[in-house]
């Protein structure tokens, strides 16, 4: 816990010194990247009855901010599918505090909540935002809070405001301050370049973790959000690597013949579940970081792959075609009990569980032959299709369980898309060049 995860630096006071050294470099980088920084979000399908909210522009009296905080907050809230924000040009006034809110104006416009903020510069290069959430119907303040950071943390400040507002209204912890890891494949000099990247959950501030001429796949986060584990073919065989984000220190975990794949970090951080075929057939193994020992968990001539942990760390869900087609099974570690989990259709694979341990998301082959994202409530067994494209893959659940990110084929390439877990809101993150694969949503980072 002593070193700064440094990919997450809102906790400024404690990590200020480290952050400052990075910030100087980062400022230059951000400036050069800012031209393409703001992603436009296309809501393909909104919630039926989203909460109407106005995020009033947050400006510095007599000064310029290095970014548009309220635009970032509005985009966050819109992407959740649970909110529809008011366009700035439709606002009759730009109040900066509770006292300046003209409730009648917002009420007439159908707005339920208003976010107002006072922005100050407590010191050069520092931003302090004092923000309030007002409920229009009750003409009351829900809260007033403040957040302070450096200019380089403007996006962190905005996401913090989004998280706070989101939780106050929905009761669900916001996940706007989280990150995603993903892989891109880009044509480069007649071959492909594979990149493992990490960005904010909204796609901004993309950072390179690894670049290779050989495939990279299956990135997963450590439970503390400071490391990634992934599969790289850089040795011309698949091998599992772990890599720390703060200093890029990496370690090759496996080097077996055959499959070395689908690593999944245990919730306690002590082990990896993964797939190895070193004994002739794809089986699920447990790797202990402490003992460096591999323990075989499955033993079947079928394909067993794509293990994922239950949040309590007591069981694994995985894909197996032992029943004749790929389906999801649950292996309880104590007693090695196995149970089949999915029964809808002939193809259910790549399980991922929400943090509640109850909502299972997966890739499902629909009746028309297309691959879509589906969810299943493990208590009621209620099965639901979340998407309806032809080729959707790699679902990953936000740590608050509200959203599922996945990849979707659009024409000749794949893009990142997000759907709310109730399937009511979907949008596409307009991407970077090349194919985007295998998003992995980080845990909460602080």
């Amino acid at each position, binding site marked *: 816990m002593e070193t700064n995860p440094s990919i997450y630096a809102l906790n400024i006071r404690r990590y200020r010194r480290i952050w400052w050294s990075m910030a100087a*470099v*980062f400022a230059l980088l951000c400036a050069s990247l800012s031209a393409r920084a703001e992603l436009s979000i296309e809501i393909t399908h909104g919630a039926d009855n989203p909460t109407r909210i106005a995020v009033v522009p947050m400006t510095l009296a007599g000064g310029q901010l290095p970014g548009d905080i309220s635009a970032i907050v509005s985009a966050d809230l819109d992407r959740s599918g649970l909110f529809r924000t008011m366009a700035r040009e439709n606002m009759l006034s730009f109040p900066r505090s509770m006292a300046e809110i003209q409730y009648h104006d917002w009420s007439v416009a159908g707005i339920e909540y208003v976010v107002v903020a006072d922005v100050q510069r407590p010191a050069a290069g520092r931003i302090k935002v004092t923000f309030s959430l007002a409920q229009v119907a009750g003409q009351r303040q829900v809260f007033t809070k403040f957040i302070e950071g450096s200019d380089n943390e403007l996006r962190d400040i905005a996401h913090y405001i989004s998280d706070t507002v989101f939780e106050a209204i929905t009761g669900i912890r916001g996940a706007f301050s989280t990150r995603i890891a993903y892989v891109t494949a880009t044509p480069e000099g007649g071959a492909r370049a594979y990149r493992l990247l990490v960005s904010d959950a909204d796609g901004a501030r993309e950072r390179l973790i690894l670049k290779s001429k050989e*495939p990279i*796949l*299956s990135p997963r986060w450590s439970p503390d959000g400071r490391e990634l584990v992934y599969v790289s073919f850089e040795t011309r065989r698949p091998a599992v690597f772990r890599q720390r984000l703060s200093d890029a220190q990496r370690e090759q975990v496996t080097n077996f013949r055959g499959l070395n794949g689908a690593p999944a970090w245990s919730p306690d951080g002590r082990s990896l579940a993964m797939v190895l075929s070193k004994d002739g057939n794809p089986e699920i193994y447990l790797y202990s970081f402490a003992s460096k020992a591999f323990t075989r968990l499955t033993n079947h001539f079928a394909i067993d792959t794509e293990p994922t942990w239950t949040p309590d760390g007591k069981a694994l869900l995985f894909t197996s075609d032992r029943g004749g087609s790929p389906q999801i099974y649950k292996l309880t570690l104590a007693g090695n009990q196995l149970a089949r989990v999915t029964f809808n259709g002939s193809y259910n*694979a790549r399980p991922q569980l929400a943090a509640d341990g109850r909502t299972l998301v997966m890739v499902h082959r629909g009746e028309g032959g297309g691959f879509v994202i589906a969810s299943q409530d493990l208590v009621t067994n209620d099965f639901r299709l979340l998407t309806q494209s032809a080729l959707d893959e790699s679902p990953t659940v936000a740590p608050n369980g509200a959203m599922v990110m996945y990849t979707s084929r659009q024409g*000749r390439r794949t893009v990142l898309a997000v759907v709310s877990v109730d399937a009511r809101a979907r949008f596409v993150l307009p991407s970077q060049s090349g194919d985007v694969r295998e998003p992995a949503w980080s845990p909460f980072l602080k």
Partner: protein
Amino acid sequence: MTMKSLTNLFFAGFVAMLLAACSSTTPESDAAGSGLGGSGSGNGVATGTVGDGSIGGADAYDAGGLETVFYFDFDKATLRPESRSALQGHAANLRSNPKHIRLEGHTDERGTREYNMALGERRGNAVRDFLVLNGVDTSLIEVVSYGEESPAAAGGDESSWALNRRVELK
């Protein structure tokens, strides 16, 4: 093939693999969020090189004009009848002149990536088993699955998918 020449062959292969391993380290990477890109390219990442890690070199298998790509049906790992004659030719070559070969298994893009990784291995194993059945020393063969990660054709239709469901003998 004497025991001695076999031993030499294995040793040569082993050295080649060691060399390959040495030349294929240090992919580009950077501390996420640190923005400390040492060599400072435009997007703030450190740059390094990734060797192509070629193994084999002068000792590579010469297919002698035989077909080296073998295609499969969707979600199947069964050899098609038309693959057999070329594979029997390879088996004859490898019996008379043993070389290390790689069988790289591939799938189309449908289905999940790690499941396809396993399916690609199944296809590679099907080719391996056929070669072994035809007298090839199993220790000469390494099966490596690339799943859907290295498609031969980029399209999203059946004609492209059919080209991607394959095993390449190298």
